[in-house]
């Protein structure tokens, strides 16, 4: 146990319920199979145990965490325990009354999601009329004195609007802007053919970001998370499996990454039956891809394994069928061709697709969960993680 470092990042996914229906959501497509939710007391125990082990960052996410009316109670306890508390929200339900209560409870920061700089696309992608509301909420967040990070997931449809999205973030007074290119898991994987951009779109957007960075100084820090399908080396996913990140799903399942539920053959330990200490240090799931012993070739003998830790297990499974394979984003992987083919297809098929775009909602979730292959491989959208920003 002494050589396993403690968790630093606790992500509390309070609920899978969400008023938005975003086509790139990283939640499991079969989220309707996991509809039970931990009680307030169970969450409080999770916070205390994780803090005792050493976790310092606490994210409240979902689904939409504001749908839990005990959010303020959990924030207060998290802050008192010494966590830096982050609310990751769509803004729906973030009234002035709740902002007052969250401020009073000690919430440190709010990350607000936008889908685009235009009402039309924002509302289409989330299948809601929420653009104006989000604008009002952004204003209230600043009026309440919270640091605000604006997050916008990028893809084929909104990459050409990157300049407008940055202008919007500046006008709102956001401290950081996270331009997160879609990662293809969960609902984003289901909608991959529609969302995948072209290499040209990415190059143009990156140039725009560079131009703004040089113009605006440190007014707003812009993060541009490169989509790894366009790379030749994988990202150091989760900074390594079981290394810093501990996610707790709404039903209490403990996850080494946001989207680990898409992996086959794993029985996730649950906080209702195991302590956080047992889960982190002793469980089969958290030890499964820890360190290097689980690796196959070409990772096992690769000198770069300490840099990327073999990449993403979910991506390896979705694209090669085996989660212990090298992440095929790596051009040393014998399966790298699979990634190239996806990107190549996106470049030629300008107007997709046989399959209509699939909004994240309960009926689609039930349909996907019941499909013959189950929630099929080839599925999540992983937000940026602790330890990545240095």
């Amino acid at each position: 146990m002494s050589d396993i470092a403690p968790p630093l990042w606790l992500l509390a996914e309070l609920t899978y319920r969400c008023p938005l229906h975003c086509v790139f959501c990283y939640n499991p497509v079969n989220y309707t199979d996991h509809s039970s939710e931990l009680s307030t007391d169970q969450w409080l125990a999770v916070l205390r145990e994780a803090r005792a082990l050493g976790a310092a960052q606490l994210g409240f996410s979902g689904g939409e965490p504001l749908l839990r009316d005990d959010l303020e109670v959990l924030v207060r306890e998290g802050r008192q325990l010494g966590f830096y508390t982050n609310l990751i929200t769509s803004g729906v339900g973030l009234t002035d009354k709740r902002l007052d209560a969250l401020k009073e409870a000690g919430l440190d920061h709010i990350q607000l999601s936008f889908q685009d700089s235009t009402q039309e696309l924002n509302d289409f992608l989330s299948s809601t009329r929420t653009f104006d509301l989000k604008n009002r909420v952004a204003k209230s967040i600043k009026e309440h004195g919270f640091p605000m990070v604006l997050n916008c997931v990028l893809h084929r449809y909104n990459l050409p609007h990157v300049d407008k999205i940055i202008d919007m973030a500046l006008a709102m007074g956001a401290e950081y802007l996270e331009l997160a290119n879609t990662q293809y898991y969960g609902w984003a994987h289901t909608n991959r053919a529609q969302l995948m951009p072209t290499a040209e779109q990415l190059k143009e957007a990156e140039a725009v970001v560079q131009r703004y960075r040089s113009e605006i100084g440190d007014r707003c820090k812009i993060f541009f998370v490169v989509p790894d399908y366009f790379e030749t080396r994988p990202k150091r996913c989760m900074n390594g499996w079981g290394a810093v990140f501990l996610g707790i799903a709404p039903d209490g399942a403990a996850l080494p990454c946001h989207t680990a539920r898409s992996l086959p053959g794993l029985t996730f330990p649950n906080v209702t039956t195991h302590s956080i200490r047992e889960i982190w240090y002793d469980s089969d799931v958290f030890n499964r891809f820890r360190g290097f012993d689980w690796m196959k070739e070409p990772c096992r003998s690769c000198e770069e394994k300490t840099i990327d830790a073999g990449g993403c297990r979910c991506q390896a499974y979705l694209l090669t069928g085996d989660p212990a394979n090298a992440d095929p984003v790596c051009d040393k992987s014998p399966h790298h061709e699979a990634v190239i083919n996806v990107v190549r297809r996106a470049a030629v098929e300008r107007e997709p697709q046989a399959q209509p775009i699939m909004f994240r909602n309960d009926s689609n979730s039930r349909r996907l969960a019941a499909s013959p292959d189950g929630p099929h491989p080839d599925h999540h959208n992983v937000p940026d993680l602790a330890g990545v920003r240095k």
Partner: protein
Amino acid sequence: MTAPTLMLKLKLKAIFRLQWEPAQEAHVLLYPEGMVKLNQSAGEILKRCDGTRDIDTLIADLQQAFDAQGIGDEVRLFVAEAERRGWLESVEAAP
């Protein structure tokens, strides 16, 4: 026109929180979804950037606390780096 800037007090920006983490046996700087582990001298310097000291007072304070001389350059270098990283702001002296 030159003197006033020297009077400005150093302050950690509101988006950051500095705290001691027993599990890491170190001071850490926490900010939205991120954390930086600090070495001992960085921790001691940032702890004192609370809006009550200008750079000279900060250095004098550290020299006294650690019974050390000639650390001025090292402190200035770190403060410049912390400003470059956007951790610190300079504020007018409180009335």
